């Protein structure tokens, strides 16, 4: 004992051994970390940051604040009860003149148009006419130019613009909006589409999950109980579509199900139907194609759990007098539950984010949340709305994924 103590304190540089050891370990940890660092930085900058920024866009909007700085400063004093006074109108005119000169009036108008449809043209008109105004009184002049500026709700909207943060987009995503006095009210029916979109996404995902479970469970059972030679052969039939590109499979379904496609022509030739059935560009097409794509995702986790279940339990139950169905239901089925939960959750999570398949085989009235995210990004250029819908979809996905991870563990995700 004594010699060890002497040795450990008497190392060459007079440093105790445990400190030296700790130092070496720290250096090794650092080396390991440096290896990971390039990818970590790459993912953080190229993936986490963009998505974080997109989430931020859902609650951050400084259009009015940056484009109408004078009005916004003046409005921060305004109480919001009556129409603003002359000074604020003067600020408004100064801002509108600037916006006309810098061609930003459309951006202001577009932002106001989100909440008050029809204001885009009025704002652009006001900016054009305001640029010709030279002297006051500004209040009457502005209301003369456009009745927009004599409306209480317009000024309340402007007042909300004094903050760079807004919950307008998130409220819109769940079909609420601001009323004339900045109170939160339900959206009018023509705008209230998003709860429907979320419900549709949920119901399509649930249906697809249920169908994949109903179809996948018997096949998983067959594969798990067959001798391995024949089950391997059948397994190829499950894995082969799993390996084919999603786009290719979607295209295949369009070709099969379209009006003069293989399915319709076959059914007509067999005299099952006389007219081609509407199988594609509607809910039927979406569910069929999505089920086809998701079936292996549900089936494989169930299969891998079933592989571990020993057949002796069911045999024991049978020999104790249980009927075949009773033994299956009471003894075998409960043991497959972890696999069912994992497979269904995985399919459900993946279904929520479907974009390509509904876009190609679904009807126009059958689009899921992802399509609206894409629509607001590419067509409407309303990035706030796209971000808010995306934020809700992402939150739901991550929460479900978190529970999936608790249930199964991410490392057990298999890739074909």
């Amino acid at each position, binding site marked *: 004992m004594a010699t060890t103590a002497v040795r450990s304190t008497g190392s060459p540089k007079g440093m105790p051994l445990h400190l030296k050891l700790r130092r070496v370990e720290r250096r*090794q*940890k650092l*080396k*390991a*970390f440096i*290896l*990971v660092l*390039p*990818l*970590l930085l*790459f*993912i953080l900058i*190229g993936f986490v*940051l*963009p*998505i974080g920024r*997109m989430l931020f866009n859902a609650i951050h909007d400084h259009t009015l604040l940056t484009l109408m700085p004078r009005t916004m400063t003046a409005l921060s004093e305004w109480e919001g009860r009556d129409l603003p006074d002359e000074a604020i109108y003067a600020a408004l005119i100064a801002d509108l003149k600037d916006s006309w000169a810098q061609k930003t009036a459309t951006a202001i108008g577009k932002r106001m148009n989100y909440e008050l449809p029809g204001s885009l043209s009025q704002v652009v008109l006001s900016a054009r006419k305001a640029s010709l105004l030279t002297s006051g009184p500004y209040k009457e002049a502005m209301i003369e130019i456009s009745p927009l500026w004599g409306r209480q709700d317009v000024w309340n909207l402007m007042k909300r613009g004094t903050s760079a943060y807004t919950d307008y987009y998130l409220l819109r995503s769940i079909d609420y909006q601001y009323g004339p006095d900045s109170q939160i009210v339900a959206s009018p029916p023509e705008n209230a589409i998003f709860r429907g979109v979320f419900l549709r996404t949920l119901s399509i995902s649930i249906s697809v999950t249920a169908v994949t479970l109903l*179809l996948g469970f*018997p096949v998983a059972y*067959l594969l798990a109980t067959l001798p391995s030679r024949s089950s391997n052969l059948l397994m190829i*039939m*499950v894995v*082969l*579509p799993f*390996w*084919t*590109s999603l*786009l*290719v*499979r979607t*295209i*295949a379904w369009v*070709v*099969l199900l379209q009006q*003069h*496609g*293989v399915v319709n*022509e076959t059914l007509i030739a067999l005299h099952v139907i006389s007219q081609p059935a509407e199988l594609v560009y509607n809910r039927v097409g979406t569910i069929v194609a999505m089920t*086809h794509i998701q*079936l292996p995702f549900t089936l494989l986790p169930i299969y891998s759990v079933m592989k571990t279940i020993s057949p002796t339990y069911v045999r024991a139950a049978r020999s104790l007098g249980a009927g*075949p169905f009773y033994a299956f239901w009471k003894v075998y089925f409960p043991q497959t539950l972890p696999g069912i939960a994992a497979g269904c959750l995985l399919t459900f999570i993946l279904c929520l984010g479907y*974009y*390509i398949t509904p876009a*190609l085989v679904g009807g126009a009235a059958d689009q899921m949340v*992802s399509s609206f*995210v*894409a629509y607001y*990004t*590419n067509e409407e250029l309303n*990035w706030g709305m796209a*971000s808010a819908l*995306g934020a809700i*979809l*992402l939150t739901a*996905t991550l929460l479900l*994924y978190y529970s999936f991870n608790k249930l199964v563990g*991410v490392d057990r*995700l298999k*890739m*074909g």
Partner: protein
Amino acid sequence: MAASVYATPMERAWYYFHRLLCGAVLLFLIAPIFVVLPLSFNSVPFFTYPLSAFSLRWYQEFFLTDRWQGALHNSIFVAVSVTLLSTVLGTLAALGLSRPNFPWRTAVMTILISPLVVPVVITAVGVYFFYADAGLLNSFTGLILAHTTLATPFVVITVTAALTGFDHSLTRAAAGLGAPPVTAFFKVTLPLILPGMISGSLFAFLTSFDEVVVALFVASTNQRTLPKVMFSGIREEISPTIIAAATVLTLFSIIMLTTIELLRRRSERLRGIRNT
């Protein structure tokens, strides 16, 4: 395994019903591929059987027109760049992650494979906004970087798997015999993890080669890839050339994934892991 001789008629009926159902489901799974892809050999542009005559005209169009060849070249260029980039980044990260006592492994791993979890539209939109500011929109650089984020998780996962059960005393022995770390890596570690690396890079290649959503958002017509052309083609009208392209794509991924599977088996055999 046939139905047991002791089975009641009810059980026997159930047994055959089960077999029938399974057959139908398996048919449902493979039918789209085996029914649709042969239609690309039809001599007339109709999608019904029987084929009127065997013809390779759609493949001729696919392999000989600029529109498809340009897209194929773009796809291959992007996918090869993505593969190189993601294999290097992913392998380095996997090597670091599988060192003993790596700090915050779970958290880091979660971040690194998060691109697999997030719905691809969200990734596409986030990257689109980001590129709009960074000036990377409609450029090959942007498309390659975006595809690399989607592809690296596969490399990280496969190489990490290849490194489980990796005997670290081998590199220590190499170091003890005087090999500098770089030599030890190339002479000892690399040959052992090579199968994992190759299958990871094949996955990365396929991820980029098949990817359409991000390409739709961040790439312009100058960077149009094969899936992008197929997507826009199917929105207008499906031509048999699209099916020919799909057939080529499918054969391609089947060959690649068979290679991956063979490599995985070989790697398991090399590392002495018994197939359970």
